[in-house]
């Protein structure tokens, strides 16, 4: 069939197609519901379909026992929440590090030191305010600097590691105690107990 024939004879010469308006897509996985079985979370899809399109639900899953399905869904959700963080040991480690707050005591000279707080920016967006709080509470200086690894850290003047630990616990209830790490960076190999 040439171009000319088409335009002369009009629409009837074109190949025909059906037009399916309002094809239903699953509200959970966005696939056509007949494909939910192969989607990421079929049990959830089933519940959605039952609640939103019961007619289609009975067609697609006519023998489905939904109580069993729901139980399975709860189990799989529970499993998912259990297994989600343990993706791979590497990823886990990365994720843990990402949410870690370290309060590091760094010796500058024998008698002077600073404390560097990293990781707080994951919990508190306004680090300047935090630095000010530290400075006021401890009557010292505190500043916000960018860390080389990205993100921001607070440097507090003086030997105040434990005080900062207490302030963080006290003022930032959203920072769980177990993510806080206290470390020390001594320049010279200290002769321990060298009194």
């Amino acid at each position, binding site marked *: 069939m040439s171009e000319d024939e088409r335009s002369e004879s009009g*629409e009837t010469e074109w*190949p025909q*197609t059906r*037009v*399916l308006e309002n094809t239903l*897509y699953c509200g959970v996985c966005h696939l056509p519901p*007949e494909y939910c079985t192969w*989607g990421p979370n079929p049990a959830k899809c089933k519940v959605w379909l039952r609640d939103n399109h019961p007619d289609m639900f009975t067609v697609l899953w006519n023998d489905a026992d939904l109580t069993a399905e729901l139980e399975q869904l709860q189990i799989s959700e529970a499993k998912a929440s259990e297994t989600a963080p343990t993706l791979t040991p590497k990823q886990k480690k990365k994720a843990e590090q990402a949410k870690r707050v370290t309060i590091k005591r760094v010796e500058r000279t024998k008698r002077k030191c600073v404390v560097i707080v990293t990781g707080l920016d994951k919990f508190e967006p306004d680090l300047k305010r935090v630095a000010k709080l530290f400075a006021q509470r401890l009557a010292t200086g505190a500043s916000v600097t960018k860390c080389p690894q990205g993100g921001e850290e607070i440097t507090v003047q003086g030997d105040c590691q434990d005080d900062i630990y207490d302030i963080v616990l006290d003022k930032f209830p959203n920072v769980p105690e177990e993510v806080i790490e206290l470390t020390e960076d001594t320049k010279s190999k200290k002769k321990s107990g060298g009194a």
Partner: protein
Amino acid sequence: MFKKFAPKEEISSQAKTKSSVQRAIRAKLLEQYPALNPYADVILPKKAPMVLIKCKDNISMIMMNDTYLFFQTFDGPYYPTLQLLHKYPDIMPKVQVDKGAIKFVMAGANIMCPGLTSPGASLDAGIPKGTPVAVMAEGKEHAVAIGLMMMSSDEIMKLRKGVGIEPVTYLGDGLYKVCAEAALSALAHAESDSE
């Protein structure tokens, strides 16, 4: 091709086409999918702007009214998005895979000849190599994928082994998700406009 497609990272340019380009693309699309002629003013309205989105790997996509319609690589054939194909299901030749092949297709695997020649499958004779085809599935109403014939249908039936069709897009891949999200947000817009 779209397994991990996420346009936010992959779009290199996005621009309204000049009207001459829009006309040319429209003509090419209607030439490749003549069954769409009666619906051309609905799908490809002359007055609405046509947006050409260029992504990496020389993929470009055509969008109108916030809906992804077609895509192509280099200047190869245009493929409809699966959502468009679901609405106009008869615009391209169809092949059918058996039920057992669905999960592999939805994982992005090549479609092997046995999946096209088994009892649950169906394959019309005379489809040449290099034809874009709609991949249907045994017992399902909607297409599961769109692919490119790597052999002619006669070769597939004769050889009965090897890769018969290379998937271009399939249900649940990156492109599919992007289109689904775009459709949802377009719907939300329409609803808020009508309020």
